[in-house]
């Protein structure tokens, strides 16, 4: 397939403009956006830039999007670029430690192979894997800081607009129309769409639908999964695509002056007599993270707040016109206790866990080394095992690096405090979908039916987390159907 570029980076007098094409594609019961270029290819074109005065980022969305779609995609896109920045952040802080330990293991294997060559066939696959993996990580590490900077700036400035190129529009629309016109099994539909995308020369749309197809196939066996996984690790596509600019370029921030602006969103869910407020990020489930990373239990914004100056606006999506002061009062009372303190705790815990986990291997080496020395002593001579020395050295290295990991996570924990302080002027936005839910449940006579209807409607919107809440409510309120008084004994006529 010919590699077509679906993004453009223009620079003029220290002002740059990034344009990327995206498609809003249907999957069964849902819609998702897909970048038409690989994100690394896009970043490859941005990383050589630096010290800009201004930057605009536009994402052209194709596939007949509505106004609502544009808004949702923009929100999702900002979140995705922030998540990418978060991954780079974690890579920078944990990656060095992992690389040092991997390298130590490699050195250990080499030493073992020298003394016991018969072990080489056993050690070699691991050594090859280690070299490839460490090399890929080193490559990623080299550019991680710049990628983080770029991803944050994109997230900060991206605007999603309807696509105007008639050529691309026709190609994407062909796929959307195809989806609308066919019915079949999930396999059927996704395969046909992948084939259509290939015909249209949209490689990443094809890959997207092929992945959906793979997901709807019965799974492979265990060994196939292992092979698949190792294959993905050996041919690390992201690392392979990455181009590393010169050090002088990659250490310069993308923009000279940058003020990050983010919004934290809350939703107000209607019930019959009251409203319940939730943080929307609590509902962001189903995301996939690379296996080599620690799970990002943390809010991407907390990482940013810990490092730079961020202006946070709090957006509260409401089903109807509500008094903002009332919400603000209630929220500031409960927000810290329920949400941020928990996350702050998680952040600190995670810092300890990560640095502890990385110390397991050196500790095991030290124990083996001590045993080796003791057995040596039994044989009649006192000697200090090289394994013990090796263990002590790696333990010291992991302690040193582990400290920086811990410091990083505690900075994040403090970030949550800052976010909380910023909670001053929330703005209310009325939401059509929430209004629909409101109509269903407001003053409802039969709560079970109302809440189960709201449950089904939320699933229809693709709000799985919110659906869960309404399902629980429906299940809870079924007691209304009980006859007055609990039946304690049944007697047949």
């Amino acid at each position, binding site marked *: 397939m010919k590699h077509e570029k679906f993004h453009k980076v223009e620079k003029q007098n220290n002002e740059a403009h990034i344009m990327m094409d995206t498609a809003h594609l249907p999957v069964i*019961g849902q819609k998702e956006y897909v970048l038409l270029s690989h994100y690394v290819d896009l970043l490859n074109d941005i990383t050589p830039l630096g010290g800009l005065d201004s930057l605009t980022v536009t994402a052209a969305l194709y596939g007949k999007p509505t106004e609502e779609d544009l808004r949702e995609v923009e929100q999702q896109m900002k979140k995705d670029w922030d998540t990418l920045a978060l991954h780079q952040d974690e890579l920078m802080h944990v990656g060095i430690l992992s690389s040092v330990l991997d390298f130590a293991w490699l050195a250990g294997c080499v030493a073992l192979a020298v003394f016991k060559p018969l072990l080489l066939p056993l050690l070699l696959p691991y050594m090859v894997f280690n070299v490839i993996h460490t090399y890929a990580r080193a490559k990623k590490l080299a550019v991680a800081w710049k990628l983080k900077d770029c991803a944050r700036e994109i997230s900060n400035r991206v605007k999603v607009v309807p696509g105007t190129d008639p050529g691309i529009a026709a190609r994407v629309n062909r796929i959307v129309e195809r989806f609308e016109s066919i*019915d079949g*099994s999930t396999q059927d539909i996704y395969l046909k769409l992948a*084939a259509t995308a290939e015909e249209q020369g949209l490689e990443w749309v094809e890959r997207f639908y092929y992945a959906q197809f793979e997901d*709807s196939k019965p799974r492979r066996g265990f060994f196939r999964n292992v092979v698949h996984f190792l294959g993905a690790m050996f041919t690390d596509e992201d690392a392979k695509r990455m181009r590393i600019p010169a050090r002088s370029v990659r250490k310069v921030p993308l923009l000279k002056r940058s003020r990050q602006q983010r919004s934290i969103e809350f939703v107000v869910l209607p019930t019959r007599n009251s409203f319940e407020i939730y943080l929307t990020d609590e509902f962001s489930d*189903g995301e996939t*993270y690379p296996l080599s990373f620690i799970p990002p239990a943390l809010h991407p914004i907390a990482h940013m707040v810990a490092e730079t100056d961020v202006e946070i606006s709090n957006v509260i999506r409401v089903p109807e016109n509500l008094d903002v002061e009332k919400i603000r009062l209630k929220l500031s009372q409960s927000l810290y206790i329920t949400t941020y303190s928990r996350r702050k705790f998680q952040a600190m815990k995670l810092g300890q866990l990560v640095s502890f986990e990385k110390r397991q291997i050196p500790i095991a080496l030290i124990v083996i080394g001590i045993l080796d020395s003791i057995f040596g002593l039994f044989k009649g001579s006192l000697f200090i095992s090289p394994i013990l020395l090796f263990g002590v050295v790696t333990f010291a290295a992991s302690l040193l690096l582990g400290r920086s990991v811990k410091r990083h996570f505690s900075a994040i924990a403090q970030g949550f405090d800052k976010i909380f302080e910023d909670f001053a002027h929330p703005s209310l936005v009325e939401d059509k979908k929430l209004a629909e839910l409101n109509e269903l449940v407001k003053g409802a006579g039969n709560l079970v039916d109302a809440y189960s209807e709201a449950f089904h409607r939320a699933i229809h919107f*693709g709000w799985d987390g919110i659906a869960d809440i309404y399902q629980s409510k429906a299940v809870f309120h079924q007691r209304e159907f009980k006859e007055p008084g609990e039946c304690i004994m049944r007697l047949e006529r």
Partner: protein
Amino acid sequence: MIELFEKYPLIKDLNTFKRYSDLEAGMLALRDRLHVEEVARSKMNRPIYAVNAGAAESAHKILLTAANHGREDAPPLALLSIARQLAQPNRDLERLMKSVSFILLPCLDPDGYDLRGVKCVDPIGNTEIREEYSESSWEDVNAVWCRADEFLPPETRALKKYLLELHVSLALDLHETLFYRPSLRFQLPPQWRFYPNSFEVTVIEFIPESQRDLGESVGASIVENLKRSYYVPRKVSNLGRFLRKIFVPLPQTITKGEGREISGPLLTEFRKGRMVLSDWLTLSTGIPSFTFESFLSPLDYRVGAHIAGVEGAVLAFAGLMPQAVSARQVKRIPFPKKKKFHIESAKEAMQLLGEECRMVVHRKDGRLTRERLIAWNSARRLEFRKRWLRSISVWELYS
């Protein structure tokens, strides 16, 4: 080829039956052609229907029940699909319906179906829909069929009475093993992507000694027909036998009351002698009865698996042997490096059979099993096989 039912449902069509009211409308729409009757009412006043089809006076009756656990959404959809096909039978099915009658209860727990929950019963028969299966003294409704009537909820009592009066000869209760809440969209949680063998089918059979031959052939046929129609991981090899100790073998048939070893996470409860609907039917009427469980796949796949399982049972019950399928090679096409077998096959299939053709991924048993894709339209059925030397051979299937 004997094909009683269409086993590959359409996903968008299935997604229109998410509420019980939709399912109900679907059943009531069949009233012109089939006998649809209300047999009980749920606690939240939703009607429970039975659909009767085939020879009314026949002594050969097959009972199909589903959604005993309301949150399991594929079985009722499978029975609705079967009911629709019984209303407009093909030639094979029409012939069969002259001697066999079908009684379908597509949804035993309509409240649970709407709330995506499980009906649980306390020791004296009060019920509540819960999000998960039984806990503490509340048992799930499928475990209370052997209780005395006094301790049953009214709808279960009515259903028991109705089922006993039917005098059926074979019973199949359809279930699913779900660890996630079924929603509109199927997506595996990321941590399960590396989970081995997740399309798993379990057939739990309870066969009285007097009906041993029939029961065993039906049990085997359920699994065989499923393997014919869908890709189910092949029978365990020597290595597999070892892995069987770690992972659940697929598909598995468990015969109760025979002392065979029962394994698998799902079946720990059966060791405790939990008596479910099919057990109660066998104990009280002496017929072979089966519980069929599908597992963790997209909705259309699960629904199709249930239909294939039911078809297998019906074929064995009626003593029909599916004819062997022959194949002849039509052509051979290369597929260059970096191209994917499935996409290339799909493109070729759409050229040969038209854009509206249907497709399914399949793998047959064999030492060196390779990927296959079967595509068909009303006139032809083609099989695309992956060859070692980056080529695809196209075979036409005919009986």
